[in-house]
């Protein structure tokens, strides 16, 4: 039986939400990411801004040079989350086999959903409801496997619908540049170019053994994807393996108090996400990028899994101290992450310890933040940062 998978992707999601709420900025170059005189990158750009060459992940300063008259917005992440869940709810009306791939995209397996309509009819219905209920634009790719569906939705943008008939996958992929394959970034692209491979079609013809020799198991996957073969299932529950947050500073620094304040804020963010998913972590990691772009990561693993902001912070501070003892250079970026996640044991307590009491305080603060926003309640330690992060930060 032929599978039918939809990849549904919202066009310029953050910007479109802003435009849906503020009609005055529709049809104008809009950039979400922050003020152009601050450091940071473009999180989302409207198609009008893209016409000037503005792209996601581009430094804001560069975006400003390309398009000085663009409207720069800080962004409202709680709104995006809200729109995202409404978007997912619409798709869940069509099939339970839904795999979100971030806030603004998802795979939907519609095999056996003929009673609702053909895959193309379902895609059209979803696009219609997204437009009507959310005032957003969704592009959809339809194919027999995930990778082709994703590339199809990518190519159909903006406001498109592209269906690749069974058996047509290879022919569809062949002329496309290799960078269209999900997972092929700058480095792989360069490596392939050196092998004389520019298109997916050329890649498809490289024997799988050669790909394996050159790229390992990743090469085998590339080979299959280039041939339109992808038997990954649409997995509704994609277990989170790690959680991390990082931030780039406005000015490179070695100020211990500032760095600790930042680490505390990041630890709170990571802890919040960790607890929201009913998880605990055994490993805490620190990422450090120096002014000269040298980037290091350090990890600390515990015997017992932790879940409190304090435990994450203590580990991060320790790792930072060790890293800076070894190499004292101005720091440009720090990140805090947790991995080795285990589900929250759910063992109820007969006698509550100091450590557990702290986690209970964390959870109470989490509830306040879920209701009134993250900055509604603050630790004294981060007071100095109140101008660095705004209410709707993404970091």
């Amino acid at each position, binding site marked *: 039986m032929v599978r039918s998978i939809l990849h549904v992707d919202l066009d310029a999601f953050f910007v479109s939400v802003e435009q849906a709420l503020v009609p005055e900025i529709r049809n104008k170059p809009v950039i979400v990411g922050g003020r152009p005189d601050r450091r940071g990158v473009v999180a989302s750009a409207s198609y009008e801004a893209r016409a000037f060459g503005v792209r996601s992940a581009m430094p804001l300063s560069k975006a400003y040079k390309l398009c000085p008259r663009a409207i720069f917005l800080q962004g409202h992440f709680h709104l995006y989350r809200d729109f995202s869940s409404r978007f997912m709810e619409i798709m869940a009306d069509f099939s339970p086999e839904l795999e979100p791939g971030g806030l603004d995209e998802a795979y939907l397996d519609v095999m056996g959903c003929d009673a609702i309509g053909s895959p193309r009819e379902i895609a059209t219905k979803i696009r219609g409801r997204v437009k009507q209920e959310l005032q957003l634009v969704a592009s959809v790719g339809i194919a027999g496997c995930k990778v082709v569906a994703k590339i199809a939705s990518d190519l159909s943008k903006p406001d498109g619908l592209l269906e690749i008939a069974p058996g047509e996958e290879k022919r569809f992929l062949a002329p496309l540049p290799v960078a269209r394959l999900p997972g092929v970034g700058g480095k792989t692209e360069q490596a392939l170019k050196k092998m004389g491979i520019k298109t997916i079609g050329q890649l498809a013809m490289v024997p799988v053994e050669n790909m394996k020799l050159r790229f390992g198991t990743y090469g085998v996957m590339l080979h299959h994807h280039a041939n339109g073969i992808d038997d990954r299932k649409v997995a509704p529950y994609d277990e989170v393996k790690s959680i991390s947050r990082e931030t780039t500073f406005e000015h490179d620094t070695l100020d211990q108090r500032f760095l600790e304040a930042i680490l505390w804020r990041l630890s709170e963010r990571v802890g919040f996400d960790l607890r929201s998913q009913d998880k605990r972590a055994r490993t805490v990691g620190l990422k450090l990028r120096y002014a000269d772009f040298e980037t290091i990561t350090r990890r600390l693993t515990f015997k*017992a899994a932790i879940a409190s902001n304090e435990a994450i912070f203590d580990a991060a501070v320790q790792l930072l101290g060790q890293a800076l003892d070894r190499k004292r250079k101005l720091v440009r970026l720090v990140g805090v992450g947790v991995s080795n996640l*285990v*589900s929250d*044991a*759910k*063992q*109820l*307590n*007969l*006698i*509550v*310890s*100091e*450590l*557990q009491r702290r986690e209970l305080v964390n959870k109470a603060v989490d509830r306040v933040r879920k209701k009134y926003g993250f900055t509604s309640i603050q630790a004294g330690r981060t007071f100095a940062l109140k101008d660095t992060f705004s209410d709707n930060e993404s970091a």
Partner: protein
Amino acid sequence: MKLSCLQENLKNALSIVSRAVATRSTLPITQNVLIATDGSRLKLAATNLEIAISCWIGAKVEKEGAITVPARLLTDYTSLLPNEKIDINLTKNTLHLKCARSETSINGLDAADFPPIPEVTDGINTKIEREALRDGINQVSFAAATEESRPVLTGVQLEFDGDKLILAAADGFRLAVHYTSVLTPVSAKTAIIVPAKALVELSRFLSDQDESVEIIVNQQKSQALFRLKNVEMVSQLIQGVFPNYSQLIPQKYATRAVVDLTQFLQAIKMASIFARDGSGIVRMEMTPGPEMTAGKMNISARAEEIGENIGEVDALIDGEPAKIAFNAKYVSDVLGVIKQKQVALETTTSSSPGVIRPIGVSNYVHVVMPMFVQW
């Protein structure tokens, strides 16, 4: 020092006192064992500064004296000797042992440098039957905390009141309480916290020779002495306030299931194989039988990737149908120390403490917190 004794006696004594030898220590002499003549007996002693164990054996003493030698070395060596007479002779700081056709010399350290074994004489004084003490220790010590973050919970509280003794231990998730009595009433109500590790050691060397154990607590309640016929253990006591556990024991239940202990334990063990990667969660469902007939208890566990197991045991159920989930280890731990044929599991809600009691005796109660699960 010059004496002779039997290899078997020396070997046994060494195996008892070596439980108190320090493994890692900043004070090297605590890795030694003290050997000293004491009247017509030979005394061996070791201490890690938390506990000290002394043991006496019969010997033919010709000349008095004392020395300390590396405990591990002497224990290993003695255990390999044949069961014959050992002649022991001390010249300066070297201990000579001669047994059958073996001779050895061991360099020792001066006995005067050995940490003094505390003498516990004043304070409260009582006696308890060996079996009563052993049962009490076995039924509660495993529930003490192993991690050191809350020191009082690493101990077992001994509460003396008249001729009553209550032993209690808790680790934050469970509580075990054993009620027993002492042979001689104490003069004043006293509660002490003894390190669980010390009591476990004590229960190991309670032998058939010992009909009763004398317990002496000093006035400051900083040390306790446990005196057997030929062995004495002194333990430092944990300072602090033990949680008021009586309020943690539920006074009523909504469901009570009486089951056969062996069947219950078997079902828990089967389920725990499948509970390993799911934080050890086993689920129990109690269903009363229709009209005066026996009900049943289902015990199940599942592992996402591996599979699941459902076991069923007959149960006499009083009250409502109920569901509750526990850490398998906590349940098997308590079932493992109950000697009676049947036990009762009492629950109120799936998120409030469960109580396990042996049927037929009322000297033991075990409280265990459930795990929160989605049913």
